[in-house]
């Protein structure tokens, strides 16, 4: 594989930017969680590339933990979203304004 580490990092940076963009600008809770998933995924790419660059398995180990945390976060997050949807009938984060 003859690509420099920097190219992998650029790919990861672009994906991260897309994830943030999705989480911040889509008015839909599910899409926000999707954006967070994209961000976690981009971090994984950076970790794997760094693990290869420095020949150190620590980076890959981190990806394993990211996977587990992502699974946890999605299951609980989606459960909360479904629960919230049942109560308000909307996915729009702007509609959750009971405290206003």
């Amino acid at each position, binding site marked *: 594989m003859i690509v420099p580490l920097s190219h992998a990092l650029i790919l990861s940076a672009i994906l991260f930017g897309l994830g*943030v963009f999705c*989480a*911040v*600008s889509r*008015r839909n809770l599910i899409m*926000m969680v999707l954006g967070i998933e994209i961000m976690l995924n981009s971090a994984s790419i950076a970790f794997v590339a760094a693990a290869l660059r420095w020949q150190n398995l620590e980076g890959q180990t981190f990806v394993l933990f990211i996977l587990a945390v992502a699974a946890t976060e999605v299951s609980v997050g989606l459960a909360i979203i479904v629960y919230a949807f049942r109560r308000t009938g909307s996915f729009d*984060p*702007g509609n*959750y*304004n009971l*405290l*206003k």
Partner: protein
Amino acid sequence: MAYPTLAALIMATFLPFAAFLLIMIFTRMKPGLSARLSIGSVAVSFVCSVVLLAQNWAAPGPVEYSTQFLASSGLNVQVGFLADQLGLLMLTIVAAICLLVQIYSLGYMAGDPGFSRYYAFMSLFAWAMLSLSVSRSLLQIYVFWELVGLSSYLLIGFWYEKFSASQAGKKAFVMTRAGDVAFFLGIFVVLLNAGNLGVLELNGPTATRMPHEVLTLSALLIFGGIVGKSAQFPLMTWLPDAMEGPTPVSALLHSATMVAAGVFLFARLFPFFSLSPEAMGVFLAIGTISMLLASTMAMVSRDIKRVWAYSTISQLGLMIMGLAAGGYFAGVFHLTTHAGFKALLFLCSGVFIHHFGTNDFYELGRSGSRGLKIPTISIVIAAAALSGVPPLSGYFSKESIMSALAGLSNPMWLLAGLLGVFLTAYYSFRVMFVMFFPKSVEQESGHAHAPDHAGYRAMTGPLVFLATVTVLLGFFEAPIKNFLAGMLVIDLHAPETNWSHIAALVLSIAGLALAWFEFGRRGAEQVGFVEKIPPLYRLFAERWYLDHIYGLFVDRVIDRGISWLCWQNDNKVIDGAIDELAGGTVEGGRISAFLQTVMIQYRLLAIFAVLVFLAFYFFFEKI
């Protein structure tokens, strides 16, 4: 060899916790099953600990199983088991006492509405204490230390319907917490300076790399925790109030678990502490002060449980004196023997209290407490051990503490220790003579004959066992000494032939004789010499006014001093400023209101923006 040991350690420590969970979740409605679960788990722990002790009897070094919990540059925290000689000895003591107390409670707590809850808390307590004794690092010790505090709070306030009980629970919790804050700060100091919290590392080369002042500071801070937990001088008043709990709880609290945790920690970090002679001097002074204060309080109390509570404080003070004087073995051995005879004292007293329904031992004597044969014999044995009468276990351990004190250059400490021995013998036999040679027995015949039912048998079984241990343990001094000697790099200096032995023996006999003269002999008026001097009596009975001083302190300094200043500040400075600010805020609020819509996405955006600026910062800083 390694894995069976690990399995035994895990079984010994975690089974009570499993019992706690099972009782809380499943068997709360079935008291019999809860008790069986709890006793069964502790029994298995006990068997495991005995097996471990036997297996490692001749082991050359500590056995440890640990893994990194937190490792960062310069910081290093392990978790795991450290099964060295001290830990295993403590594990066995704790498991044995927990088992006996739980069996005893079958009789004592029978029919209580909170029976299952009681056993659940007992299991929690056992788990915390067992794990504490084989903890690998200070952080782990701290966690279980707090769990011990929590479960003792739950048990002291077990009869929470009673106002005084819940108050006592709170008092115990808050006062020990005051010490724990110091302990926690001490852990931080150690972590920041040594970068390691492992017990072995602190006792080994790591600590010597710390600057001396820092070492003294951290030793003093950690000792703050010991002071709170073991009820030493400034924080001692919670222990007598802790008598509000059920008597078996007091037995557990006072012998092997809660208060012993403090002394255990001292012994655990003994090589670490002994690097700082200044700190050791402070410890010695605090131990001495608490021992003498508590002994004097015990001389005038009429409540049998309180007398034993004060005596616990004074014996713990004696252990700390022994340890601080460099007598590692003396302190640990006294901890061991004390666990036995103090549990015995409380359990016996529990039988009397349960049977006659009063805590006042004058009352107990009048109602004919002599009628209960087994408890009577056992409590006399225990009191004799407490006073240091040969050949009971207390004699041997007190002798070794006295010889450690005699090794110090300043004879003052030895004299204080001897005075303590005298007072101990006096107050414990005061109780004995009043209880068993009362001036008048107003019993209706047949009232006091030993009841013969299962509950009573459950209560007396542990008594017989503990009494046997108390009688025999003293003769195992040499093997235990050899066992403990295996783990220490420091020398166990003990001047062998010394006049302190004879002096201690003479003084304890003198205390006994004085007690006999005032309370025991035919026609004695059963009024102690202290009670004939009213100011002294009031001073002792009011516990040297310590509680008053604390109350006054809280009232004057905190309520009227600091609070008043705060209040003034609040009124004049802050309110004024707030009024000024409020107008501005309303205006500002209008402007920024559009940001404060409840949209979470705007907040996410703000977080992201901050991240971007941080990236800016780091980028340009690097260039």
